[in-house]
């Protein structure tokens, strides 16, 4: 079973990295880029598991709350596939 955790800065948290990328895109001639936010994708291989995808999702949420994301500044989304 494989999982992906998408971690993003919360909307209200300033993302200077995204802003730098937006400005660089403008410099390269890509006009019309209004906003850029940079997040991170964490891919996790859980191997063979007898757990249901609901259980795995709950486990991933716990991992995200405890380590993968910082709830003060970040939101996350979990997706699971076979």
């Amino acid at each position, binding site marked *: 079973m494989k999982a992906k955790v998408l971690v993003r800065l919360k909307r209200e*948290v*300033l993302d*200077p*990295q995204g802003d*730098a990328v937006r400005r660089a895109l403008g410099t390269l001639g890509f006009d019309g880029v209004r906003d850029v936010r940079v997040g991170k994708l964490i891919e996790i291989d859980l191997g063979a598991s007898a757990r249901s995808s609901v259980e795995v999702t709950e486990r991933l949420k716990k991992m995200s709350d405890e380590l*993968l994301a*910082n709830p*003060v*500044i970040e939101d996350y989304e979990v997706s699971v596939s076979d």
Partner: protein
Amino acid sequence: MSAAMRAAVVVFPGSNADQEMLRTLRLAGFDAVSVWHKDSSLPASTELVALPGGFSYGDYLRCGAICRASPILPAVRAHAARGGLVLGVCNGFQILTEVGMLPGALTRNAHLRFECSDVWLTPTGEGPFTRGLPKTLALPIAHAEGRYHADHDTLARLEGEGLVAFRYCDADGVPSEHGPNGSVRGIAGVYGGPSKNVLGLMPHPERRSEVLHGGADGKLLFDAAMRTLERGLAA
């Protein structure tokens, strides 16, 4: 004469300000020893625990995040819960927020640069490390992720309870709105723990603690902590 106050400096893989932390603690009269992150207990009768600056665990995932899994952490938490003094400087401050021992978070400087400069600070909260400090202190900063962030409710609580320990300011002590890194309300350091016994700050007091450094303002925090302990004001 009573036995010297013991201080423990936790060394993580990637810590790089532990030696100056040890030296400054000793200058202030502490019996300072280092503790490896894989240890699971603090030395007997430790009065103060310091988490030094650096790049613990390579800053992987987020600065300070991996420390949540550090074997020494439960002992540090227990020390703080008992009212024992804890000081986190720079990466140490990042660690304290990441493990939930202090509120808020430290994230990328608003201008994205690694900020290495001298700054003015003004103490804005009375506590074990700030008692008797002058109105302004000159200390160095050296960080890329030092922008303090907290939501409105947390900020209201911090300010209402006098937990904002330090703000960036100008040479006259007038607080700055964002400091050198974009910190909300110019916050440079915060208190936490059951009795303001936990302090985290981004500037490095241990790097401005003797004449050779061009100033010794930073040593005043360690002197204040020592006075606090000698008067039995901390558990």
